[in-house]
């Protein structure tokens, strides 16, 4: 249900984004930001396993007694002992660390950030801040039926003829960044979904 709600919110926001784009004057185009909640568990890896955290905390066990005492921990982590020491031995063992992890296991609602351009290569050209005549000519070159097209060899050749070396290098770098972003490549117009911040306990 929650994911359905989230999808609806995202879709709604994207539609709002489309409306917003349509309402914008041509000179006012600017990058949109797509902010979506990212399912934390979707990216696997050994560093995300509970054991990695237990190993991390016990790595401070200087006297190898399989417990980590307050003094063995860096100051910034000493609060863990006060939070998790269940048997009052002024130290944490692996069970107590695991319990601490469980107590704090509710993942915070987090947001991830993706920037994307609604203007595709036109935005790339705009960012170059070229002299007016060159700017207009470059805009004509990159405009076409597919706004977010990846520059092909013909376009690159035309741009190389138009721009000086530094401008051309910057154009290629920005166009490459643009083409690496699949959302931009797909021509998806973004909206904004607000995330909630977890307030301090």
């Amino acid at each position, binding site marked *: 249900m929650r994911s359905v709600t989230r999808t609806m919110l995202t879709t709604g926001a994207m539609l709002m984004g489309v409306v917003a784009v349509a309402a914008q004057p041509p000179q006012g185009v600017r990058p949109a930001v797509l902010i979506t909640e990212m399912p934390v568990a979707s990216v696997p890896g050994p560093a995300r396993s509970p054991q990695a955290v237990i190993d991390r905390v016990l790595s401070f066990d200087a006297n190898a007694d399989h417990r980590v005492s307050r003094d063995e921990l860096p100051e910034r982590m000493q609060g863990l002992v006060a939070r998790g020491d269940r048997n009052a031995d002024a130290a944490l063992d692996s069970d107590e660390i695991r319990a601490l992890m469980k107590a704090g296991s509710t993942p915070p609602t987090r947001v991830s950030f993706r920037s994307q351009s609604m203007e595709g290569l036109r935005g790339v050209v705009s960012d170059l801040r070229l002299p007016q005549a060159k700017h207009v000519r470059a805009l004509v070159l990159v405009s076409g039926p597919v706004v977010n097209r990846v520059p092909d060899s013909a376009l690159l050749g035309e741009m190389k003829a138009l721009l000086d070396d530094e401008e051309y290098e*910057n154009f290629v770098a920005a166009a490459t960044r643009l083409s690496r972003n699949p959302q931009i490549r797909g021509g998806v117009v973004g909206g904004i979904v607000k995330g909630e911040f977890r307030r301090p306990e």
Partner: protein
Amino acid sequence: MTRILCGPLLVLSFALTAAALSPSGPAARRTPNLPATPYRYANVALPAHLTPPGQNLDNTPADNPLTDDGATLGRVLFYDKRLSANNTTSCASCHVQAHAFADPKPVSRGFHGALTDRRAMPLVNVRYYQRARFFWDERAGNLEDMVLLPIQSRIEMGQDLKQVVDTLGRDKTYEVLFKRAFGAPQVTEPQIGKALAQFVRSLVSYRSRYDDGRARARTAHDDFDNFTLQENRGKALFMRNCSACHMKDGNEHFFVPTPANTGLRGNDPSADGGVGDVTLRPMELGSFKSPSLRNVEVTAPYGHDGRFASLDKLIDHYSDNAILDPNLGYMVPVGPLKFTTSEKAALIAFLKTLTDRTFLTDPRFSNPFVE
């Protein structure tokens, strides 16, 4: 003649050194130079772009509103070395005004010269960090508690709060300052925290060249009339590649609103785990809070461990480095940005427009113990 003078001068020099190092030395007892009418800290009018309608980023709690007298007391406490066990270290020893209240050293040193784990963060527009969590690992849940922790740290200032209360309670200057700030002359631990927090919240930067240009621009994305072509190009690059995190929702305090993993931990399980070391959430190992980018020009070296000596090196990290952290992507799902040399120069030119010289030299924030 020289020989005659050398002896007494040496003796005087030793005496001054001993006095300065002594816990009860004159350096520890100096009286702060304060204006007859307190400086204005409360109700400072910020430009419209820092207070957009519908956004409340202010983390000031209802029970500790910012007042001129409270922040004045906080300023004196901030610079008072008697808050450390051996009278050598104040908050300002690591939070240096000329460096936007950051430590210019890669890793901060405590009152005995021992190294801490990290460098002191810049204190810029902290009031507008909406999450109201503090330190690189966000282990402190409010500013009033946070400011008391370095005082009690065995490495940083090594002082017992009861000792601070006792020492300051015998100082007539503080009697007056506490009475003005809180209505009673008694020095208490919570009020030390509140006053310091008020001073820290007063450290708001809003008079940079960016702010000057922004005041006449329709949006942050438009070219600013006081910027060079390179600065406007850098701004455009920033807006396209960096603003999604550093200006979320158009926030021009330039905070990343939550901790982020930018690949600083790499694949090293023994490296500082940041937020994950506090929350014990596996996916948060390697995440760190980011300071505001305002005044970033003067807050080098960068990163929690000061590993980036310059803005150039910092941008190189995002531009060129292969980042191996397995948790990367949790918050910053971007690959190397591959900026050209010209783009890097433009980005740095733009970042330097965020420098606020008035903030860095503002007498309201300066050391009141300087003669």
